[in-house]
């Protein structure tokens, strides 16, 4: 098993865990944690493809991931702020009870 395959396997596992968390957890913050995991799995993939790709000297993947992490931080801030706002409004953070957009 080559190192790239190993990395991809880990990343896939991580993505699956994150997805499972995001889908199954009823608590909003835990669902956000799942999403964070999925994002990081993607980052891992990007790093791996850069590290074991044809031009590891160009730093493209690294910078891409750096941006992605910054984005993740911002996203987490927005997500948490949303959760707090919803909690204040509805006195709950259970995602099943937040369904105002039902058609």
């Amino acid at each position, binding site marked *: 098993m080559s190192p790239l395959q190993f990395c991809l396997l880990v990343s896939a596992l991580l993505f699956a865990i994150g*997805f499972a968390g*995001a*889908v*199954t957890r009823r608590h909003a913050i835990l*669902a956000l944690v799942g999403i964070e995991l999925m994002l990081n799995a993607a980052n891992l993939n990007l790093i791996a493809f850069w590290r074991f790709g044809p031009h590891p000297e160009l730093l493209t993947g690294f910078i891409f991931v750096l941006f992605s992490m910054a984005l993740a931080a911002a996203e987490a801030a927005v997500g948490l702020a949303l959760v707090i706002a919803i909690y204040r409004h509805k006195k709950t953070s259970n*995602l*099943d009870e*937040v*369904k*105002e*957009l*039902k*058609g």
Partner: protein
Amino acid sequence: MNWIVQYLWLIPALPLVAAGIIAVNKQPARKLAASLAIGSMAIGFLLSLCAFAATLNRGEGPLHQVFSFPWIQFGGQWMDIGWVLDPLTAIMLVMVTFVGMLIFIFSIGYMAHDQNFMRFFCFLALFAAGMLGVVIANNLFLLFVSWEIVGLTSYLLIGFWYHKPSAAAAAKKAFITTRIGDLGLLLGMVWLYAQTGTLNFYDGGKGCMEVSALSQMATHLTIGGMAVSTMIGLLIFLGAVGKSGQVPLHVWLPDAMEGPTPVSALIHAATMVAAGVFLVARVYPLMAAGSTVVHGVPVTTALTVVTWIGAITAIFAATIAVAQNDIKRILAYSTVSQLGYMMMGLGVGGVAVGMFHLITHAFFKALLFLGSGSVIHGCHEEQDIRKMGGLKKYMPVTFAVYAIGMLALAGFPLLFSGFWSKDEILHHAREWSVSHVPFFLGCAGALFTAFYMTRQVALVFFGQYRGADENAAKAHEEARSHGNPHVSGHEADHGTPHESPAVMTVPLIILAVFAILLGFVGTPAWPWFHGYLTGEAVQFDFSQLTESGTLALMGTSALIVFAGITLGVFLYGKRQRKTAEEKDVLEAAQPALFKLLQNKYYIDEIYEHTVIRFNAFAAEACDFFDTWIFGGLVLLVSYAALGCAWLYRLMDEKFVNGGFDTGCKSLLGLGSGSSKLHTGRVQTYLRVIGVALVLFVLFLIWGRKA
């Protein structure tokens, strides 16, 4: 041109304006209404006098002074209207305004207690305006318009007490009967316009009553070889027959007595019936066109017809009047008879002869009608002469003036105007070259006239008062319930007759004076009237009296009058009836004949069974036609339309709407179905995305392999 010619229009315009003001005024302004109407007539009278003076001082000017202006344009032609000032107009103006004014004044007293006093004066003023319009018109069109105003207001005035069914019926009868004549007038007018291209009477040589147009019409022949002028003249004469109550259209005139008595006086003396005679006098040149002159009098077919109709009417109505019991009806038939004389005079002797009788008759007939109004007023609305009697004692003034009127109408020799005017007609009738029958008819008519007037006066003023108290009280009650409570002011004395107030007697006295004096302007010795109308100079010449059998004729007619009066006195004066129910002397002697006369020769009944039945039948036929033929067609069309509409609805509902509805419903189902996917749960969406991703990846993997 005299200034009065230009301002002649003021004479009819003033009463018209007065009528308008009265009409728009608020109700209880009685004094205003009366003073407006009488004031307008008084000013009109003064203006008429100016016009009269202008015609007297004509000098060498034209006989007909006209003032015309274009009024309506149709096509390339202008219809003129205008007025004419000639002796005929002037004398009529003076007569109408003067008699009209007196009647208006009399009305103040007669209508004093009527609730609709204002309306009455409004109609009176309008009536006078219409009549004056007829008189001044220099245009058959303007004349026709005014003529119709007269017709309309006569309808309104005869039906003034419209709550009485008889009055309403009489008004309708008058309107419809005169309408038959008006149709003739209208046709004549249209034909005249087609023939000459103008309706102006006098227009400096271009008018239709002037030589060039007349000679053209007289030579132009039409159906039956008659000259066009004859046909047009006869059509116009038909209008005069309707308006002036000549046989066979006289039936409305006696019924018109249902109106208030001043109206009867106005219609039967000064205005409406005179309009017909005046019309014939106005178009006399047309009637006389293409004539052969015999004894200085033109003879044409049209004038012969006029003469015969007039003569027949004169004797016909005079005999009916003998057997009537209603004081006003007697006078009404006497009017019809006298109008016959006027027509006869126009036919046999020309304008001056007929017009002279018209003018004298206007005065003494107004006098008689107003006098009868005074009698009716005094007897508490009683009109039956059998229930009067002995009024000489109670109403001396009325008796005196009534006697003058009666003698004038009867043609009592020398002193009274009726004698001179009637004598002139008889004189010309005797010399008439066509036939002597009208002369004998006229003489017989004169005999009857003297007789029935004597009968009336004897029954009304002599003997004992026969109106029992209970009858008077009943009449009193009846009058009051009818809303014309002339008597409500006389609570104290409603058992016996009483003299009328001065506002009623003074006009009577004035009229009486004229009934005597007027005769002297047209005696054979000094035919001023004749000269005035024709524009010839006349001399005072006593020898005229003895010439050409004039004296003999005067003697004959005086004898006839004496015979009539003596007969009347003998039959009715000597032996007065004791009670109101007693049979008439003539009825006892000749019951069948009397009954025939009393029922007016059954003319109304004959019309009832012929003309009216035919009319009803025609109406029913039209109704049948309307209901079944035209109605059926309309119904058919409507059903076709309904069928089309039904088809359209079907198309609309089943196809157009159906399609739309189905489309809408499926869209709606789609929407609600897809809205179910939208649960609002974020994680469900994420799940779906996850599953889709897995499926997508699987698809890619297996797709690559295959």
